[in-house]
């Protein structure tokens, strides 16, 4: 049996949701958005991810509904392909290969057989808008036709290109000019803003463009916060524009409502502005949306709109400007100061979220669980402001306590430092602020750690600071006769020759505290706070410090800035071994003796997994990623895996996640890519049908086999079930008092008819309405024809044995129904085809 020699590095979730504008389905039930290499389908009502459309091999850069069939979706990607999806079932229908890197995708109702994409052909910064004809072939993979140039020198951002509502022009903006291409005339008009040329520091660059769906009107957003509405642009001399100004910073995106009666705009103020009738006076606001609005999208039905935000969030907003759903992914802050942590209760990954917040992110469902507001202050989004940063956080006492440190340092001003201690409240299932310590130290806090102790011990916290001290905080009783209360107080202040304290760490049993003071590591007894011993290697400041776990608890590991990894034996108080390794992340696994160290080398970052007691590392993996690894953490697995390969054994109990400098969250997977790609939806279906008990494994397979044989019988059973519940006529019949009903003979045929129609109608609606899959559609209808007589017979039996001729009549009536139904469906299609 072969096994993979080494674990693969995989990107795990947390992709950006707000890279491109989200797209609503035609009935506003689903919201589609790009997410890394995937397209995600969310339900707008429940905020749940319904499907993940997987298939692209690189970043997906654009999605649009198919204008000729609104149940299909086009997507384009950096891998040079355009894919057509059935997003309701999550099926890939077709793939068109274009060959260039595709930056944006546009579709238009009047150009059914072609789509528009943004590509760059020659120079890296010259982008072109081209139209790509898509051939009509039954094959799954097809070469797209030769692209035809529409507009040259455009901006790569899809916000800077917009198609006119009637499809007769396309508008594109870049820098200081707006160019409009008319399809009929096949000509381009170009408009420049007059002031932009004269003034050197004029900030009226175009940032985005939107076209009115009905009228000939183009709205453009500018860097100085103005919105211009252009009219009469078909004549290069007679054009006019009006100006709307509310934003004080650049306009990030613009969108017209579905009917064009109002214009929506958003920017860095994180306020959604609705301009009614495009007038300056009548505007409405939805403030405090949390972060910069990146994109605004409006549903085709016009009842919903959504804003994508810089903090990886999509807010679905009703027409009355009320937020009704929030889809929140992993917030990518540019500075993850707290590092990665694992909440012991929820097993969620915890790190910096929105400014001043701590986010709890579920790794399993790639969803943010909740945000804990640490700073609790109004967030003012303005460039150049020094915000209060959440600098450090630590969990303690099995998740019962959370300590956070926030700081704000102006360039020359004094440091504002605050430490907060949060207690977990079982009733509200959240953290409540317990103690607030302002200015716990005189300088930045460099490390924070709780004593991992038994429940009987007093919770203890140690903070190490650059002011040369470490402080021990204990939970003390603060209650009097009026209330019961407990709060944290400072118990001990320690220092060592006034060196800066750089790190601190408790041993596994909580009996020893190690504090590193620049180059020296000091060991303190945690009962009496007495200095026991010091280690000094003269190899640079100690950056990382950790105790060995379990059988290796007699070892203390330290990594210095100058690139030395040392291991001290605490029993002999001597250096056990040391090696040259410039460690950037060192994390002990809480469930085993293993320690993972990520080192920086010329070819990227290397991972070393070792036991402190053994001279040889368990696993060495060179070049796990090309950039610097900032933080790492071991997340315990719920179910231990049984990997026998020596190089993978360290992944049995926990999984190692790490965060790189470009904010991507990576992990190691031992599974092959195919295994990893099995859609979770399938697994879910199997689980839903039967609970996975031992009995299931014994009998479930058997039943599946038998189920195939007795398919017909099962189907007839299925028919009866919905009939009595769903059809209003039947329910009415059953709930009306008997004495007011007409005679049973009169009702009988009516009743049966209603039964038949009711079971057919939903299946017809639910069928994939696919014009291109005609063969399949035919097969479907033939199946129905086969099934229908059976149902009719079934209904007849329940009725109490009607004569043979009656059954015949029924059959005729049924075929009539069938025809009607067909008609209905045809009507349906025509309605669908009209956008």
């Amino acid at each position, binding site marked *: 049996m072969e096994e993979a020699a080494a674990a693969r590095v995989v990107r795990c979730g947390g992709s950006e949701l707000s890279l491109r504008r989200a797209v609503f389905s035609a009935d506003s039930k689903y919201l589609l958005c790009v997410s890394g290499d995937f397209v995600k389908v969310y339900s707008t009502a429940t905020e749940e991810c319904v499907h993940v459309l997987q298939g692209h091999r690189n970043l997906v850069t654009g999605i649009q509904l198919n204008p000729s069939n609104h149940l299909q979706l086009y997507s384009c990607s950096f891998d040079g392909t355009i894919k057509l999806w059935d997003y309701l079932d999550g099926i890939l229908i077709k793939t068109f290969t274009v060959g260039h890197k595709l930056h944006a995708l546009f579709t238009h109702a009047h150009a059914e057989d072609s789509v528009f994409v943004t590509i760059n052909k020659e120079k890296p910064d010259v982008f072109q808008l081209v139209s790509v004809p898509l051939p009509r072939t039954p094959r799954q993979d097809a070469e797209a036709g030769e692209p035809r140039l529409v507009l040259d020198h455009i901006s790569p951002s899809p916000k800077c290109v917009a198609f006119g509502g009637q499809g007769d022009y396309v508008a594109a903006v870049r820098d200081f000019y707006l160019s409009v291409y008319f399809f009929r005339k096949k000509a381009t008009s170009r408009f420049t803003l007059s002031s932009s040329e004269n003034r050197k520091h004029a900030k009226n660059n175009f940032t985005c463009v939107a076209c009115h769906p009905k009228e000939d009107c183009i709205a453009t957003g500018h860097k100085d916060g103005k919105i211009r509405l252009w009219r009469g642009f078909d004549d290069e001399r007679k054009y006019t524009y009006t100006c709307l100004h509310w934003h004080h910073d650049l306009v990030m995106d613009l969108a017209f409502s579905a009917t064009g009666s109002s214009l929506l705009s958003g920017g860095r103020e994180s306020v959604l502005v609705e301009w009614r009738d495009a007038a300056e006076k009548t505007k409405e606001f939805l403030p405090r949306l949390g972060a910069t609005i990146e994109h605004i999208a409006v549903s085709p039905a016009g009842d919903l709109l959504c804003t994508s935000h810089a903090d990886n969030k999509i*807010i679905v907003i009703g027409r009355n400007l009320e937020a009704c759903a929030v889809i929140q992914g992993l917030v990518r802050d540019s500075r993850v100061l707290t590092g990665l942590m694992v909440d012991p209760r929820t097993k969620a990954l915890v790190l910096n979220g929105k400014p001043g917040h701590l986010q709890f992110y579920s790794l399993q469902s790639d969803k943010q669980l909740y945000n804990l507001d640490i700073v609790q*202050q*109004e967030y003012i989004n303005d460039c150049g*402001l020094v915000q209060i940063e959440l600098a450090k956080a630590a969990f303690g006492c099995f998740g019962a306590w959370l300590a956070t440190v926030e700081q*704000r340092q102006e360039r020359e001003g*004094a440091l504002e430092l605050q430490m907060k201690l949060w207690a977990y409240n079982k009733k509200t299932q959240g953290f409540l602020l317990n103690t607030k310590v302002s200015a716990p130290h005189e300088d930045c806090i460099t490390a924070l750690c709780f004593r991992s102790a038994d429940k009987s011990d007093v919770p203890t916290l140690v903070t190490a600071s650059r002011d040369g*001290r470490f402080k021990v905080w204990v939970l003390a009783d603060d209650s009097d*006769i009026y209330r019961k209360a407990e709060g944290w107080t400072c118990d*001990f202040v320690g*220092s060592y020759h006034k060196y800066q304290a750089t790190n601190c760490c408790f041993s596994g049993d909580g009996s020893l505290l190690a504090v590193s003071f620049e180059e020296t590591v000091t060991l303190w007894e945690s009962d009496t706070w007495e200095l026991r011993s010091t280690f000094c290697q003269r190899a640079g400041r100690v950056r990382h410090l950790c105790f060995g776990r379990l059988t290796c608890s007699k070892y203390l590991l330290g990594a210095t800035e100058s690139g030395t990894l040392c291991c001290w034996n605490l029993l002999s108080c001597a250096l056990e071994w040391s090696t040259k390794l410039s460690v950037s992340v060192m994390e002990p696994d809480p469930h085993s003796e293993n320690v993972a160290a990520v080192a920086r080398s010329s070819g990227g970052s290397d991972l070393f997994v070792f036991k402190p007691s053994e001279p040889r590392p368990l696993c060495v993996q060179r070049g796990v990623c090309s950039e610097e690894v900032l933080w790492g953490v071991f997340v315990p697995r719920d179910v231990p895996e049984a990997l026998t390969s020596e190089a993978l054994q360290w992944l049995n109990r926990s999984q190692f996640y790490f965060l790189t400098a470009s904010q991507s969250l990576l992990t190691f997977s031992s599974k092959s890519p195919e295994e990893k790609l099995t859609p979770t939806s399938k697994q879910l279906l199997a689980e839903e049908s039967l609970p996975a008990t031992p009995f299931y494994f014994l009998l479930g397979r058997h039943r599946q086999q038998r189920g195939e044989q007795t398919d017909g019988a099962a189907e007839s059973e299925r028919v009866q079930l919905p009939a009595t519940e769903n059809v209003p006529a039947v329910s009415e019949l059953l709930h009306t008092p008997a004495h007011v009903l007409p005679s049973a003979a009169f009702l009988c045929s009516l009743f049966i008819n209603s039964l038949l129609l009711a079971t057919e109608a939903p299946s017809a609606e639910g069928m994939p309405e696919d014009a291109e899959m005609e063969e399949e559609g035919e097969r479907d209808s033939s199946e129905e024809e086969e099934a229908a007589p059976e149902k009719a017979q079934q209904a007849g039996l329940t009725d109490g044995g009607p004569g043979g001729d009656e059954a015949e009549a029924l059959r005729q009536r049924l075929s009539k129904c069938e025809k009607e139904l067909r008609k209905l469906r045809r009507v349906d299609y025509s309605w669908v085809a009209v956008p």
Partner: protein
Amino acid sequence: MAGYKPVAIQTYPILGEKITQDTLYWNNYKTPVQIKEFGAVSKVDFSPQPPYNYAVTASSRIHIYGRYSQEPIKTFSRFKDTAYCATYRQDGRLLVAGSEDGGVQLFDITGRAPLRQFEGHTKAVHTVDFTADKYHVVSGADDYTVKLWDIPNSKEILTFKEHSDYVRCGCASRLNPDLFVTGSYDHTVKMFDTRTNKSVVSVDHGQPVESVLLFPSGGLLVSAGGRYVKVWDMLKGGQLLVSLKNHHKTVTCLCLSSSGQRLLSGSLDRKVKVYSTTSYKVVHSFDYAASILSLALAHEDETIVVGMTNGILSVKHRKSEAKKDSLPRRRRPAYRTFIKGKNYMKQKDDILINRPSKKHLELYDRDLKNFRISKALDRVLEPSCTIKTPEITVSIIKELNRRGVLANALAGRDEKEISRVLNFLIRNLSQPRFASVLINAAEIVIDIYLPVIGQSPVVDKKFLLLQGLVEKEIDYQKELLETMGMMDMLFATMTRKESTAASDGLLENKRIES
């Protein structure tokens, strides 16, 4: 989306005594009225009936004072020797007192001469009390005996000779006419039942008992003696419930607050302590000028009267709450406007839509929410805010600084407004808790208004004042540094062994200093 988050007002812990409901309640008294008596005030007793006069026993006289009178409204002075323990009957019409010569005298409060005289004790009678049925008097004397007297025919009914030392305190049950308690210098407190002719419960206090007190329910007994106050559960046969040792000297008197929730004890260490009767923790304490011998609370705790060894009677009246009513009350909307629509019962098919409740915001928060920064600053620079709650002003200045608009908010002010800012700076700049924020603000003010200096004499004067303040502060800091240097030297001379401990101590000191 999340609503506006109000500005967090930084709170600073108040050093010293914590403000609790009790401190507020017990501090809500006017300055004491001092009345000089002829000798040590051994007993103060309030009449249980209106108008709540009180009898003060001092030397050989008993003075009756009205609640607000500073002169006695009546005096009983028919005693040959020192009088003791003038006590009102439950209906407030009779008064009984013991005396040094062994006599017990009963007075009608309207009359002058004693109604009855009970002769039988051979030594000084220090404690007398009426029983619950109002027709008997209990007395305890230095001849170790406790006697029960009948008022109508002034006869001795019973004599208990169970104590082996002076009987100095006693108390009759308020519920049962047959029960009473006496405390003696033989360290015991005994409960007697007149139906059995002997004590039914006896507890050992461990110290000469100075005062006893029965709770209104009769279930708990409090005894004071030595430095201890002890609480006994009589229903469990005299089990010690709690022993309190909060005084430095002998506890001389006990008293219950009118609600029964608080117990007061007075002591020779010149303190009155207030205990909670649920947790028996000290919740408040009063200081007096001399050793306290007697203590009484009026109906509804309206008055605290304390008698001291130097013959001074200190009377404290509760502050009246009439002041609040004197303000004309603003007419508020009728009650029905508040419940409008709230009491609507949901019908079967109704969909109830609740209007989101509006969060109350302070005025400065409302200004900040709408980015009216100058107005917000103006609001918190009002004298009413700067004097009472300077921390709010500082918090708003800090918030404006965080938003990067402090300079904008401070700019463009006229003479009156800028002098208001400067006044605030002068008043609070040197306070360590505000210094970091205000120094920054002061720098901005100086930067902005430097070009116009010399135009207004008022503002110039304020600037000079500020300068003087800063100079003074610098000198002070210098002195502090010098002191610290001296202390460092002292600690450096200590032995090597203690160096770690010393450095910790030093750190502590430094923190206190800073």
